[in-house]
């Protein structure tokens, strides 16, 4: 077994882990990150993509609100390519307490969340689909964020400072000598080979899985996995984040992100973050709530539904998950449990990932005798090579996010015939660039370039992408077409999971056509006999 030695082992390739990795590397510490799937494969890649202004938390969780407001400004500066500057509205609908508006404004001011009341005419001019019965509107600095791109960006920056990243490496054991955690054994899911990583410190940044990881070190951490279900709609029917102006509840946010609008979310306790379903009632409930913000919302085509599991840290008993603090906790297990060499970073939210990382890196630096200050808030990060550069505004247009940018790029180069994914405008060359920068299956490519995320949900692009995947690897004589076949089956299965909760109307018709393509025309049911895991791909059944 290969043994590697490092200063810090970060477990978990979500927003938190990749943020900590960058911070540590910038301070000159040697750091390795391991992730059992692709980056953001856990919760980070399954949230609505909201860069919080803080407005949502001003009343219930003032500390989180303040943290969000400060971090919001920082993230816009250090990773502009990950942020769509949409702005955000908080609106009072006939279903909301009209008195909450004044309280909301006052609490925004108290918590340092920039806010302004928006004349209703101005609100309707900017977002004409909003409910005409909305009685008040407030504007805040919400934005849409690409959490996957952000994690990659952090990792890319960390690598430039010497950090190492092992994705598709699962944690087998934490090595403990007496009361000291001294490293871990991980397994490469691509090859089945195991590595021992010796480290002075282990950071458990596994979110909803933090309890499971801590248990490997014999430490008890209680994280309540709170499932949040989200539905992506076919249109970006608003270009502004729309929040209900009320105490946070289910289905009260619509986030425009890339080419879609996402409505979220629910909050249901699930016993195990790896096993949960999406219920029809949840989807129905959110569409009903969407209708209150945008009349006719339910008639739009729903593309797919998915859920992420929030890592809510439970310190004491509270009645409701929503009442758990959305701020984070850094658990120093040496102090808390008498186990040295391991720290857990739990709770929090995407918007505050950098702050959480700074806190964790401060503690680690102190333990390791590193005196370098945190510089993550100042240095602007580079964009990964596969980035589509579709965020940003139009030179002559409004200052906010320009929806048409990806199409303008295709138009400019007349690359229409080169589109592999037509819905999301992914060209062959972009897909090839993404493959070259490392993809272990087609679902990774989806996260990188959005292939298969549009209305047809991969119906037309995924068999093409499978062929390109094979082409990419075919220089390697050992690469069997059966590996590409396994990737195709894996992707279809993943998409199908997201489609089943929204199978009605247009999406049902689409699914029927996709079924005819794959089952009728391409005989996908016979492919199972010609599919096999391997070739450096990870395609769990």
């Amino acid at each position, binding site marked *: 077994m290969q043994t590697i030695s490092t200063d810090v082992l970060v477990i978990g390739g979500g927003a938190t882990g990749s943020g900590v990795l960058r911070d540590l590397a910038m301070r000159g510490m040697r750091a390795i990150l391991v992730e059992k799937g692709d980056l953001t494969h856990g919760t980070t890649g399954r949230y609505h993509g909201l860069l919080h202004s803080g407005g949502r938390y001003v009343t219930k969780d003032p500390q989180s609100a303040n943290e969000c407001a400060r971090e919001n400004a920082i993230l816009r500066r250090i990773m502009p390519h990950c942020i769509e500057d949409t702005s955000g509205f908080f609106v009072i609908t006939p279903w909301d307490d009209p008195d909450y508006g004044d309280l909301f404004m006052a609490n925004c001011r108290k918590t340092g969340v920039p806010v302004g009341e928006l004349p209703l005419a101005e609100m309707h001019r900017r977002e004409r689909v909003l409910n005409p019965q909305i009685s008040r509107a407030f504007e805040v600095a919400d934005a849409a964020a690409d959490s996957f791109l952000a994690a990659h960006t952090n990792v890319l920056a960390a690598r430039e400072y010497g950090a190492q990243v092992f994705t598709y490496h699962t944690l087998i054991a934490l090595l403990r000598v007496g009361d000291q955690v001294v490293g871990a054994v991980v397994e490469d899911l691509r090859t089945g080979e195991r590595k021992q990583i010796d480290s002075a410190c282990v950071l458990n940044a596994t979110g909803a899985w933090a309890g499971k990881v801590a248990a490997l070190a014999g430490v008890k951490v209680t994280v309540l996995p709170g499932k949040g279900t989200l539905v992506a709609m076919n249109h*970006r029917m608003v270009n502004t984040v729309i929040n209900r102006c009320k105490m946070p509840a289910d289905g009260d946010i619509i986030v425009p992100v890339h080419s879609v609008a996402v409505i979220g979310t629910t909050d249901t306790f699930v016993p195990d973050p790896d096993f949960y379903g999406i219920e029809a009632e949840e989807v129905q409930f959110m569409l009903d709530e969407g209708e209150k913000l945008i*009349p006719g919302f339910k008639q*739009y*085509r729903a593309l797919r539904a998915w859920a992420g599991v929030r890592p809510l840290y439970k310190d004491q008993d509270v009645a409701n998950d929503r009442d758990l603090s959305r701020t984070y906790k850094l658990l120093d297990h040496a102090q808390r449990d008498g186990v040295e060499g391991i720290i857990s970073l739990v709770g929090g939210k995407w918007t505050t990932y950098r702050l959480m990382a700074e806190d964790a890196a401060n503690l680690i630096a102190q333990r390791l005798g590193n005196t370098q200050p945190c510089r993550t808030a100042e240095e602007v990060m580079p964009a990964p090579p596969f980035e589509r550069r579709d965020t940003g505004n139009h030179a002559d247009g409004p200052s906010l996010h*320009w929806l048409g940018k990806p*199409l303008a790029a295709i138009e400019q180069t007349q690359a229409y015939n080169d589109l592999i994914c037509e819905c999301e405008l992914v060209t062959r060359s972009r897909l090839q660039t993404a493959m070259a920068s490392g993809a272990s299956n087609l679902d990774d490519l989806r996260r990188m370039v959005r292939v298969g995320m549009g209305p047809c949900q991969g119906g037309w692009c995924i068999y093409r992408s499978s062929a390109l995947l094979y082409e990419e690897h075919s220089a390697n004589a050992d690469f069997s077409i059966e590996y590409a076949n396994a990737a195709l089956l894996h992707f279809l299965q993943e998409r199908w999971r997201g489609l089943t909760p929204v199978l009605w109307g*247009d999406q049902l*018709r689409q699914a029927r056509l996709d079924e005819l393509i794959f089952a009728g025309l391409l005989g996908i049911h016979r492919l199972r006999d010609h599919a096999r895991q391997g070739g450096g791909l990870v395609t769990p059944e």
Partner: protein
Amino acid sequence: MGHLEDSLDQCIKCNVCMTACPVAAVSEDFPGPKVVGPQAQRFRHADQPIPDASVDYCSGCRVCNEVCPTGVRIAEINARARAALVAAQGQPLRNRIIARAGLVGRLSSGPHAPLLNIGLGLRPVRWAMEHVIQIHRDAPLPAASRHTFRHWFHQRGQRHGLRQIVYYHGCSTQYYEPWVGQAAVAVLEHNGFEVIVPDQKCCGLPLLSNGDFVNAKRYHVYNVAQLLPYVRQGIPVVGTSTSCTLTIKEEAPELLDLASQEVADVAAHTYDIFEFLRSLADQGELRTDFRAIRRTLPYHPPCQLRAHRIGVPVLDVLGLIPGLRIVESQAACCGIAGTYGLKREKYPIAMAVGEPLFQFIRTSGSELALCDSETCRWQISHATGIRTKHPIEILAEAYGLYPS
């Protein structure tokens, strides 16, 4: 919801429109109906710059709408996107001229028309036009008429009949082909109608298809005001131009978001003339005192007629004429699409689009072809050298009314 653009939700990317589109089949400049329609529409925002100019290569023939199995309003999505382009970037001089069919017609027709027609027939003139205003030197331009249709109609004086009917002649009959209107009036009067020709402007279709929605709306509102008093009295409106009647029935109200009861009433009582004559025939009210015409004639139902979704009433009505055999073209489109094929950069596309139709006409062996739409007639005659008439002219001939 309920906007045309929202019909993009119904697109399942099936490519049926891509295989049927006559423009995409012959041009690299047009990525295809699905691509510029529902696919691109997801990336267009009402208040933001239109990112793609390729949509301007849509000819607006509506073949895509016709074949779409899920009811996406592709042609309308494209027309709106083009209008947004025009609103943002303005209209080239050429389009501003050709979109004003009424104005151009008014300036062209009259005593000076023969001179103008000779001028437009001169190669150097057309060369200059191509370079100055980007109208292709070979594009079919109609010959202006010395006398307008309305001049003829008013000269002959009002004739009374048992029932009244309003005739919407449109620009082509008024300024270029008054004989089409004369034939229509003759046929209607022969069937006992008193024909009323109210004041009217261009239907606005050339403006709509060139993206000038502002002026198109002015025209439509004017026409509705003129036609409404008759419609309210239960008097139907018929037209010989399938594109004008389609515009009044459907295109203008939909594209321009004109939802008033007045607009809807006029739309509901406007008919293509053969649609109207067929309904007379169905009720046994159409006179059948036809002379036999022993000929076989090729007939092209224009795209605009197909968009009416009324079948092919010309076949039904002309089928009543003894001896006459009509062979229907199965070609998708003649290519001209109103003003599309006049444009310097689009003329070659239009000619390539029409080639299957031209082949059909050429190989028919006939010296005469039939088509309901004026610009299609000009295109067919231009490409094949074969004279092309409106079917109403044949019907008038069968009644022995024409040429009078």
